């Protein structure tokens, strides 16, 4: 269905734009704001801006390698049977 495709596309663009703006604000703008401004309660401490992407990247890479490994094992099993 064309409408489902467009809805998924819109969702993806919104997610990517929001992640980009939040991360940009976090890394570039918030460090230069005064410590007692109210904005700081919406953002975690700056160390988490390093920990969270690294953790997400490591999780993504391990999931990818798990997937590739499982596919390779399945194809080898099929080859042995045939």
């Amino acid at each position, binding site marked *: 269905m064309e409408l489902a*495709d467009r809805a*998924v596309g819109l969702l993806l663009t919104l997610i990517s734009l929001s992640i*980009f703006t939040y*991360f940009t604000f976090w890394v570039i703008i918030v460090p230069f704001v005064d410590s007692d401004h109210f904005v700081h309660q919406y953002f975690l401490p700056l160390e988490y801006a390093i920990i969270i992407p690294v953790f997400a990247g490591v999780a993504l890479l391990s999931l990818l390698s798990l997937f590739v490994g499982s596919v390779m094992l399945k194809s080898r099993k099929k080859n042995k049977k045939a």
Partner: protein
Amino acid sequence: MLTFGKLTYSQDKGAPFSPMKHIFKIISLLAAISAFWVGLLQASIIPRTHTWLLPIYLVVSLGCYGLLMVGVGLMQFPTCPQEAVLLQQDIAEAKGFLKDKGVDVGSD
């Protein structure tokens, strides 16, 4: 080489989109940004604990850009409904023809 009567027009030696020049531009831009970042680190403007902030920011923004392009492409994908109907008619016709000739046309 195109020839219009006596005039001959030959293509220039340098193609407009040389594949190597684009990547040199990207590499030089990355080198400039990382030199700036290392300079900021060395001058102690940014504490050493935040060393990896810039590379991570670049990787995250690259991932976001890829996701954005995928989303935009999905939204703008043309579906050609008339061609879909014609294709279904072609498939039905081909199936009927092959079934007459005795070929097994599979799932139905």
